[in-house]
């Protein structure tokens, strides 16, 4: 039980994200084929395999620099909207962790993730209910904040965050998309799970898998 995530766990997180994205590449692409341009899994896998390829170039750097390297890589290799959006999450996390080079407290981790998704909402304009990744991050981080208030340890916090994220991914199925490619489909976007919400859930699950 701990209230911290250290640099080596953050690096494990990045590896775990790359693995889960690779494993779910076809699944994400299939989800995107239904309501988008059938490239989400391909794009995310391309981006995160590049992130993994560059691992040695950032692994010994402060946490902030690690996030920055990931941000730049995603923004230049993913291709679709998820490049600038996920890139932005990591860039905002980089700014938020400037003064914490080796380890983050639960509160600092929360703030970094919160700044990340706030940045996404700022640039992309999506709100909760638009059938995007925001639908997962916002309620999941509310759970995070509530659990911080309850004094829960980080392992427990992340279990509850993931359980909320899982629930919210499914909740995107009936929604009509109001942002992103799927929004051009209007009513026809209902009945399908959102790919970006799904990859966000995978990223949070990967985070939960490395905390203690």
């Amino acid at each position: 039980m701990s209230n911290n995530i250290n640099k080596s766990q953050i690096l494990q997180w990045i590896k775990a994200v790359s693995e889960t994205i690779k494993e779910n590449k076809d699944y994400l692409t299939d989800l995107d084929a239904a309501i988008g341009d059938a490239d989400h899994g391909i794009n995310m896998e391309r981006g995160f395999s590049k992130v993994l390829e560059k691992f040695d170039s950032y692994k010994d750097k402060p946490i902030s620099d690690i996030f920055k390297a990931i941000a730049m890589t995603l923004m230049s290799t993913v291709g679709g909207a998820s490049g600038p959006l996920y890139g932005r999450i990591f860039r905002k996390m980089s700014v938020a962790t400037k003064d914490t080079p080796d380890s983050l407290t639960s509160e600092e981790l929360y703030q970094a993730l919160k700044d990340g998704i706030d940045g996404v909402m700022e640039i992309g304009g999506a709100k909760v209910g638009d059938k995007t990744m925001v639908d997962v991050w916002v309620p999941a981080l509310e759970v995070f904040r509530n659990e911080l208030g309850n004094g829960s340890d980080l392992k427990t916090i992340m279990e509850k965050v993931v359980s909320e994220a899982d629930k919210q991914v499914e909740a995107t199925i009936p929604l009509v998309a109001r942002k992103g490619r799927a929004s051009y489909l209007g009513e026809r976007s209902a009945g399908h799970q959102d790919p970006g919400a799904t990859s966000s859930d995978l990223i949070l699950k990967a985070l939960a898998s490395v905390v203690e």
Partner: protein
Amino acid sequence: MVGLVLISHSRKITDGIKELVEQMVADKVKVVSAGGLDESTLGTSVEGILNGINSVYDESGVLLLVDLGSAVLSAKEAIEFLDESKQNNVVISNAPLVEGSFIAAIEASTGKTLVEVNNAAEGTKELNKLG
């Protein structure tokens, strides 16, 4: 002179527009084709757009012409990576990509300001093609 950066998911689209406008204005305007993740992959690259902006930048400013979705997001993100002194001098146009780029190039070639070039480009939304 105002520089133009063309951004789409497809490099072929922005290469084609560049060819089209250069036929009109020859080398009088600085136009960069920054579409695609790279030459052959659909997508957009923040780094590619950033390099494009820097390659045509001068104090007259740069107009970014975009199509849809991640073209807009990547353009916004690229602006945030610019030096602060340049940020206010780079504008994303709300113009249609093909028509807007065409008019923007003509306006830029006559030495108009960034605001004038963008207004003319955005004016193509009202263009009556069937006269």
